[in-house]
């Protein structure tokens, strides 16, 4: 058996990691349902209630007044990806606790490649969830232009990578599953609520300029806007740049943290 890593072997390794993630996803049907129930509750209950109290002016990419359900749909797509990224992060911590992570890390492939493969595999799973959600929303009467369902794909891939990389980076700092609740409270919820997912930024500015500024620099806001514009076959260049930049930063941070020579995590006793 050859010991030199050929391009074919790299592809096999990537497919193997993607297959394992998919198998785990299939085996955990509850995870799929939970990922769908959360945004659907927001869409069917929260959005229906807010429709009456929250007025929306015409803001790009919309060319007319839109219902609150229509406005909130891209935010809920990003929400699915955010929670999927955190689920992947949780699964990394779980793998570390059970020892399964060691199997991955003692592979002869470079660690950045193993992490990137895991990241991409997680994004593929999140995109399946988003399209299922968009399908249900479509049945509910929330429709984007037909071409939007195609143009949103690269945006979903990029935003999924950024949010997954953020989860990967977070997972390197968490030592035990018990600490994950803290991450949910101090990272995930603030990131989600301090964004344009549920309310437009101009609305935020009316109530608190400071909060508006916080939301404007939140990378999740840019992930939401990237998806929102792409769903209407348009490109928000600023969001594209911010999401791409954050992806590079988070992924580089994760690679450094998982590097046995540089990472803080590997230096701790019993780290792996």
């Amino acid at each position, binding site marked *: 058996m050859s010991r030199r890593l050929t391009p074919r072997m790299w592809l096999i390794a990537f497919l193997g990691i993607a297959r394992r993630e998919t198998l*785990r996803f299939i085996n955990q049907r509850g995870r799929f349902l939970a990922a769908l129930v959360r945004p659907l509750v927001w869409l069917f209950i929260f959005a229906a209630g807010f429709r009456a109290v929250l007025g929306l002016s015409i803001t790009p990419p919309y060319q007319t007044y839109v219902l609150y359900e229509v406005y909130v749909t891209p935010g809920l797509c990003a929400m699915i990806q955010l929670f999927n990224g955190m689920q992947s992060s949780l699964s990394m911590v779980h793998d570390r606790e*059970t020892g399964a992570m060691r199997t991955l*890390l003692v592979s002869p492939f470079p660690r950045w490649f193993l992490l990137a493969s895991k990241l991409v595999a997680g994004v593929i799973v999140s995109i399946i969830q988003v399209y299922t959600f968009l399908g249900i929303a479509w049945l509910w009467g929330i429709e984007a232009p037909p071409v939007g369902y195609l143009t949103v794909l690269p945006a979903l891939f990029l935003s999924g990578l950024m949010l997954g990389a953020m989860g990967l980076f977070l997972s390197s700092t968490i030592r035990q599953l018990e600490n994950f609740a803290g991450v949910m409270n101090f990272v995930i919820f603030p990131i989600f609520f301090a964004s344009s997912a549920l309310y437009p930024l101009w609305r935020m500015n009316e109530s608190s300029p400071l909060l508006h500024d916080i939301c404007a620099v939140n990378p999740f806001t840019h992930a939401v806007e990237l998806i929102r514009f792409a769903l209407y076959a348009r490109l928000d260049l600023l969001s594209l740049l911010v999401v791409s930049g954050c992806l590079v930063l988070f992924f580089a941070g994760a690679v450094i943290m998982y590097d046995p020579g540089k990472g803080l995590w590997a230096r701790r006793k019993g780290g792996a």
Partner: protein
Amino acid sequence: MVKRSRLCSTSSDEGCGAFGPRLCQMQQQDALSIQNVSHSFGSFQALKDVSLTVPRGGFTALLGVNGAGKTTLFSLITRLYDNRSGRIEVAGHDLRRQSGAALARLGVVFQSRALDPDLTVAQNMEYHAALHGISRREARPRIAEVLAQVDLADRLNARVSSLSGGQSRRAEIARALIHRPELLLLDEPTVGLDVRSRAEVVALTRALVQDGVSALWATHILDEIRPGDGLIILHKGEVLAHGNAGEIGDGDLTRTFLRLTGEQV
């Protein structure tokens, strides 16, 4: 302290005869060579200037009580931790400079269970094969072969969560063998097993060594060591003895260990 490989006892190419110098050089390389490796966690020094070798095709026991530094040493050999001092070579490949080549030659059975309990034995094996660049099609016959070796051929499609402790351990050994490693690292593989399962796992590993695999077996159980085995006694991060188990001390391992470490094992 340092023992030369059993396969080639000469130190020069002259004695290699018909095998030629290149093959002889390969045979001379130890399966594992560790030179002057230290490792600390903050102010706690877990390993102190450790040097040892594991010859090719032999069974070498790494004996030490809990906290001796066995798992830290394994984590350094598998590059879960970075060795910032000294040098580690697996089959002649420097772990820092040629980590891919070195890790490709290692099969590892960790102290804690590393199989995914939600997947079947076959799915776990295929995943491990993929992590070494082996496709499912190529891996299938090899999986059948290694599962037969560990007497688990009939558990191919069973979920790992349904395996007994002994079966699970044997499945881990099979997983570690899929990519045909030159050196098998086993970190206290019999912990938590009943007497019968423990004996099975020890016998299985010895049979693999007979087939040509080199094994480094970390343990704190003296019964698992035989007089002909290589033996390294590790205590508080230091190598206290290294050689043939039958030749260290006066041949009575229990007494020798007590004399060297001051602790019962």
